[in-house]
């Protein structure tokens, strides 16, 4: 992959927006990779958490939005809990999710879910899932 860098990318409006929504300052991250190392689901992500932040540092908003990472993140906060700089990758992925959902496109549809799940799962799973996946 080749990235052409320019100031307009680094300070791009979309990157600024995701920083604002998440409340996280990407510059804080020094890319130690602790979040990716400890993330229980990073193996299933297209882009692991630390690299998500790296791409945002580089202004590559679109790469972040295309990746499945935000839908895989389970919000367990292990990344934030162990981050030596106090950056929360979970917040950033939540922000990405929000930006995607606020466009009005849902990630899940209730009719696609197995009935057995809806019948037996604790309500909190369903409520939580829908808040994460549906606009």
């Amino acid at each position, binding site marked *: 992959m080749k990235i052409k860098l320019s100031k307009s990318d680094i300070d791009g409006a979309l990157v600024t927006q995701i920083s*604002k*929504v*998440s*409340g996280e300052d990407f510059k804080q991250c020094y890319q130690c990779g602790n979040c990716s190392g400890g993330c*229980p*689901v990073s193996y*299933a992500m297209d882009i692991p958490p630390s690299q998500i932040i790296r791409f945002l540092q580089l202004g590559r908003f679109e790469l972040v939005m295309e990746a499945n990472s935000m839908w*895989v993140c*389970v*919000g*367990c*906060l*292990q990344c*934030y*809990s162990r981050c030596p700089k106090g950056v*929360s990758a*979970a*917040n950033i992925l*939540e*922000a990405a999710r*929000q930006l995607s959902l606020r466009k009005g496109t849902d990630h*899940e549809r209730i009719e696609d*879910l197995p009935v057995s*799940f809806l019948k*037996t*799962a*604790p*309500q*909190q*799973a*369903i*409520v*939580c*899932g829908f*808040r*994460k*996946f549906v606009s």
Partner: protein
Amino acid sequence: MLKIPYYPGCTLSTVAKEFDTSAKDSAIKMGFEIEDLPQWNCCGATFPLTPDNIMGLTAPAKVLAGAEKAGDTLTTLCSVCYNVLKRTNRVLKDDKEKLSTVNEFMEEEYAGGVEVTHYLEVLRDQIGFTKVTEAVSRPLKGVKTAAYYGCMLLRPFEDMGIDRAEAPTIMEDLLKALGATPVFFPDRVECCGAHLAMDKPDIVSKLSGNVIDSAAREGAEIIVTSCPLCQYNLENTQAESGSALPIVYFTQILGLALGQDEKTLGFEKNKFSPLALLRYKELL
């Protein structure tokens, strides 16, 4: 008798009713009472991680406003409710601007006067584990019990503050108080997969599988938890993998140790009941 306002939450009123009843009954045995808020709503089941999402705070704020009428503390059992309520409370207390915005969305006003605690904290800090031990009539001697904390009870540490994020002991201390043998296992603070059960069951199987393996490897005979979703995920994963560790709420075995009739503890709802094990150990 000491009465503590209590927020059950949706799941504990339905799917995880046994968590609720066993806790209430145990409380009475230990000399206090947890009392349902007269009116409550769902907490939202997830704390909004993005600070600009104020709407996500209104549901828990409404709960807190209701709780403020009942007293200055509110206790919960479900880890998720605890996490959502405690973090929301912290945000509203620290950020007066947000508080007034949220108040504008609600009929009632929340002034920021409630302390959110977990039932475990009530036992440790208000009742005291020595008192709990005194109330035990059926010590769970020799039962190797693994406490699975999961995520929401502990993280983020600076907001939750219930125990050390990486090396908690509150549940193990309770287990010791009940006479059981606590089993420390490496994955006790790792994630079970949570709501991914909805659309990515393979991830949940893997994560929950890791947790169960890790506990089994250290010799656990029972796993206790304080989260209905953890319980659900672990139990389902077990059913798939064919192992058979009972996965129960900590209040269920608390009730057992306090001498409650095992029939009232809701073990019949568990896919893998601990009763056989306990009978085998001649504790029942």
